[in-house]
């Protein structure tokens, strides 16, 4: 992998890395449609800085980090928009989930986790990253990752117990 990429090499990179980035963005951001945009934008940003990376083989990690950051930014914007809509309409905020989503308690609970907890859980259990790798991606300490994941799992467990009555 070199600093000056031809269009063909970019295409190969795109095919190899973007599907995984879309999946990550879907799980972290919770919006399948927005995930496409996030992954595409993250690819452009990461590939645009490829020549500046000290280790070009770290492209995958850099792309993952960019996806998480973009999802966080998008979540912030979405929260502001939701507050604004709530203030305008003076009614219940969120669109109700679809019937299929409604039936999947764990998925719904995952989506309702705070952004950082959700990102940590997705990176840890979907991307199968170690706590150190998650910490690197999220730019925090491994101990912070451990705390985020523990809190998220406790919340998920409680939700399942409440709604399904299982442990």
């Amino acid at each position, binding site marked *: 992998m070199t600093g000056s990429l031809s269009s063909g090499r970019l295409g190969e990179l795109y095919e190899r890395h973007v599907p995984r980035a879309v999946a990550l963005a879907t799980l972290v951001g919770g919006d399948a449609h927005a995930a496409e945009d996030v992954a595409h934008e993250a690819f452009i940003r990461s*590939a645009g800085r490829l020549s500046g990376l000290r280790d070009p083989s770290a492209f995958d990690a850099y792309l993952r980090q960019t996806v998480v950051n973009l999802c966080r930014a998008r979540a912030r914007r979405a929260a502001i928009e939701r507050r604004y809509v709530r203030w305008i309409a003076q009614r219940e905020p969120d669109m109700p989930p679809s019937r299929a989503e409604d039936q999947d308690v764990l998925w719904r609970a*995952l989506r309702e986790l705070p952004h950082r907890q959700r990102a940590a859980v997705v990176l840890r259990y979907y991307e199968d990253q170690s706590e150190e790798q998650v910490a690197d991606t999220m730019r925090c300490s491994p101990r912070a990752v451990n705390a985020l994941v523990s809190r998220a799992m406790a919340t998920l467990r409680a939700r399942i117990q409440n709604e399904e009555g299982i442990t």
Partner: protein
Amino acid sequence: MNLETRLRETMDRHAPSLAPREMPSGTASRVYRRRAVAIATTAALTTALVAGVAGLYRYLSGGPAIRPAAEQTVARPSTTEPGVTYAGPAPFAHLAPGEWPTVEVGGVERPYVDRESGAELDKTVVASGYVEGTAWTMTAFAVHGSGTCGELFLGETGDYGGVRFCSDGGEPGQMDLRIAGTSFGLGPLTAYTGVISDAVDRVVFELADGSRKAADLLQAPPGLDARSFVLFVPRDAAGRVVALDADGALVASEPLCVDSPAQLEQVTSCGNGLSTTFSAVSS
């Protein structure tokens, strides 16, 4: 089934397919554009940083090592005006008697405009280039009471000195051809500059050896009515410069007034259009 396993299965179920997908058209150009912006930004920041450090260094070290000697200027000299001391050898010091200096027009990235003398004047660069590898710059501007003026400076920062000439206010006499001959200090380099009136169509140097050489006329900037010219000649060039009209008839003539190269470490100027001689010194 424990929570972690169930969580993994849930995420696998809801994550989109990982099948390879084709890169949309336009993505590559966006990547290249982004990279170009990043490179330009980095270059700009680096330049600003270097300039800042250089400025700080100059400030802390008490100012530039070489500066145009505007304060050494003597206005309205008579025939020959001595300059002041130079710091080092000029790249044109090797010129032999009778040897025409090699002159190039253009290619100077930042033509020098003297801001220490007449900072309020609206000086416009009308020509620049290199003579024997040394940058030169000609500017034109108007001076109240002196008509149209020009300045010729040598050196990237005017460090080899220069001369100012004007169409009016100098020695009395004919007004169609006003010249200034200058011999630059640490090398036997001689230049003739001047301004001409609307009556003049061509400026030709007629040398004592019988050769003739026409000077390129430089267009006046908007708002000025006099054109100017510059010609670098051999150190011992003698003869006259003539101004001709469109029919080739003589309008005016002036003798080449630099009769000998300036003394080492001096700049000398002469001519009916001479206004000011600038030199450069080492602080």
